């Protein structure tokens, strides 16, 4: 049971970081919308789960937050990547690509000798 949540949380964290890398500084709602769109509306049923995840990343030092002004002149909390966060994204992306490559080789039908 806890394994599933760990993996889930890990994946969500990676998506948040990637989003911030691509989009630059963004507030919570914006990150949530972006993740939803990118994953084809199949992810993030519950926007609320984002906020504890954001707090966790902030505590780990991957992102920082500060209050700013949104498009419609609202006071919103904007998050952006730190240098450590940037490195984490690069490393995670690399590892993920390696993992998928290996798995792909397994799943490919091997030619019979």
């Amino acid at each position: 049971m806890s394994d599933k949540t760990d993996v889930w949380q890990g994946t969500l964290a990676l998506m948040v970081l990637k989003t911030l890398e691509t989009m630059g500084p963004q507030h919570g709602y914006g990150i949530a919308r972006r993740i939803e769109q990118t994953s084809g509306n199949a992810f993030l049923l519950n926007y609320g789960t984002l906020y504890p995840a954001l707090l966790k990343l902030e505590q780990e030092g991957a992102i920082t937050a500060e209050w700013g002004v949104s498009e419609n002149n609202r006071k919103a909390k904007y998050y952006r990547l730190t240098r450590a966060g940037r490195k984490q994204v690069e490393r995670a992306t690399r590892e993920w690509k390696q993992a998928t490559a290996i798995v792909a080789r397994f799943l490919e039908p091997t030619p019979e000798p």
Partner: protein
Amino acid sequence: MGKLRALWMRLRSMFGGKPAEAEISRELETHLEIHVEDNLRAGMTPEEARRQALIRLGGMEQTQQKWRERRTLPWLETLGRDMSFALRQLRKSPGYTITAVLTLALGVGANSAVFTVINDAMLRSLPVQRPDQLVTIGYRSPDVSRFLAVQFWPVMKVLQQRLRGVSGLAGWSGSMVTVPDEQDTLRSVGADLVTGNALSMLGVRPVLGRLLTTSDDVPGGPTGGWPVVLDYGFWLSNFHGDPAVVGRHMHISGQLAVVVGVLPPDFHGLYVGETQKMYLPLHFLSALAASSQQDPFLHPENLAVLAVARLDPGITLSALNAGLAAMSPSLRSLEPQRVQHEPEFRTAHLAAESARRGFSEIAEDYARPLLLIQSIALAVLLLCCVNLAGLQMARVQARRQEFAVRSALGAGRGRILRQCLVESLLLALLGAICAAGLAWASVRAISGFFTPAGSAAPIQLQPDATVLLITGVFALLTALLFGMAPAWLAGKVSPAAVLKNRGTNGRHHQLRQRIFVPAQFAIALALVFSSGLFMHTLVRLRNNIEGFNPNHVMEVCAQFQALKKSPDEIMQLFHSMTDALRSSPGVQAASFTWVTPLTGFAPRLEASSFAHAQQVHSITWNDVGDGYFATLRTRILAGRDFTRADHDRSTCILNQAAAGLLFSGAQSLGNSIKAQMPQQDSGIGAFTTVCRIVGVVENARYSSLRDPAPPTVYFPASASTVGRGSYNNNLVFFIRSQNARDAISAYRAALARFAPNTGYMTFLPLTEQVDQSIGSERLIARLSGLFAAVALLLSGIGLFGVLAMRVQQRQTEIGVRLAVGASRARILVLILRDAISMLAVGTLGGVVLIAITSTFVRRFLYDTSPVQIGIVLSTLLILTAVALLAAMLPARRAAAMDPMQALRSE
């Protein structure tokens, strides 16, 4: 890395919370607003927009809660809350808290104290480098069970060259030396005389200066004085911890010495519990010798040392033993002549034994009594646990309502369990603190029992951090033991039933009544009975002082061997001193002796009467001064005491047993016997004599209070007694006076007059020496009595608790009985019957316990069969009294109940 930072941030967030709360609310509000805007743009109505936004968010309160949980460490917060709650609860019921803490403190404290003593005296390794590598090389013989940790110097020299598998072979010897104290009075202190490599091979690091080296251990000492390394405590007391002590000169037994180093505070030499004050090179023995005859380096066959070495890496003890056994026959010729014929050495061969723990008299003599005490302490701990479990269960019962309400409000079982456990742990913590204090104080008190007879220096056992560690472990185990079961039961309470006041607690209560309280009484019975037996043994031993009166006698050992006088001069000195003592105010009698009673030292010789010359008997002997028997109040049955005219071994006095043995009933007075003393190692010279019997005295206990007085022959002390001048030939003064002070001042005055340059040891009342010889019996009797009292107290409290609850429960029943016409006395009897029935079951259990342990206990008794009617009866009486006392209050409260009140409380 990130994880650590996160943890730190979460910890920090626990202190200071309000601004963050506002932030998350604000953030979520903004989130909703932006979402609502988007929804409006998509064409929804304002209400629909808001509703959809809320649904997609997943609930404001849940999100905030999850966020809060992420922000801090929830479990830590809960723990803190549990602890403050537990603290409040404990404060609200002080009776329960104090009882529980005291019970825990007693049980855990007692065990910690005893275990610390065992650890310190028997288990702890020497505070040196790699103690597991240390071995001692001595002798083992199939005839003698004990390993003989002695090595002869000629053999040692060969071993140093030829023995493989060890390194750093060093020799240890010792002596008393005299040093001036602060007021320049000469004091006798113990010193270890060691080979040059002895300290360095141990790997101790000096706190000041250096250790001894092989170049220090040369005949005559190096130029500039004998190098001496000081013990830490001695440095503090005699030199006030002077940091510039290295290089200072001092006089040791009249020789010039220079301080070269100070040892670390935790090193006390090789002997556990004894602290030598200083360490000198082995060749100092020559400087101490009164004449060249006694110089061990001129007569190496007389020198024996303790040989210690370090095993080389990879060599096992058994391999070393094999090597030594192989070398043994070729080295036999190097052993001193006299030794080769001694019974112990006839079949002995070289052997090695681990020296990891040093050498401990306590370990040898007190191992069994200490284990007995430990078993008793464990039994008391068990009792404490039972008591505490009962207390906890009662408490859980009392809080049924509270648990039911909490359960109904949504507290999970785990939550309630955790809270109960925290309370137990808190009690354990408080109990452990008290226990540690108790243990610390008791260790010092217990080590006082271990002083060997005749020694004025008590064995020092240091309580240290080990005590705390052991206490903590015990407390934790006890807490888990008595906390778990009741806590688990607490979680099982069904809220509905309890809230309707129909919850049954009968099952748990019966557990207490049927098992717990009787078990406590069983243990208490066994302990009270055993301690009765032990006390009986002690009394019998104490009354066993046969043949002399130790009261009002002061003992002091003379240190005249340092004076370079001839034996005749020393003898004259003794006589002058005795005369001076006798004429001092307050002194009723004075004399001196070689062997003091009850130290376990009992030299033997071979004697035969001329009538039966073929029957040679081995009997003990002693050299005594004139007036010895008068001083000790040993009755002279026939003939006379020694006088000054008796100056050699041509006259002798027998005790009754010896007279009976040698002359089998015939008159012994006036006859002569032949006595032969073969050469022995302990500095006693050989002699053969024919002596005329001038007196017969009553039997006196000699080496111990347990053994009957052996046949003994007494000779007048003469020049040959003090001839060899070693420490073993020192005579001891006995001074009888009404007042101890008179004896002390008389001796000091006489010493100042006749032998001003000698040190003196402390004064020891003979009664104290008698007590020291039965140290282990005293220890057992006292501690078992103490533990028995504790056990009784705990059992009484347990009984009281159970009965009080019972009365509470049966309120209705009692009310009905009273209303229907039962007399108050009958109610009293009703309750008391409960108490007696528990006591009866407990007694049965106790008898079984005693039967099981009787073989073990019997070993410690003296001349006592375990079945003593008097002790059995008094044990039962004591237990019944305690039970009735404990039952009195609840019984009286039951009898004094107002029936209307009782019935109405339903």
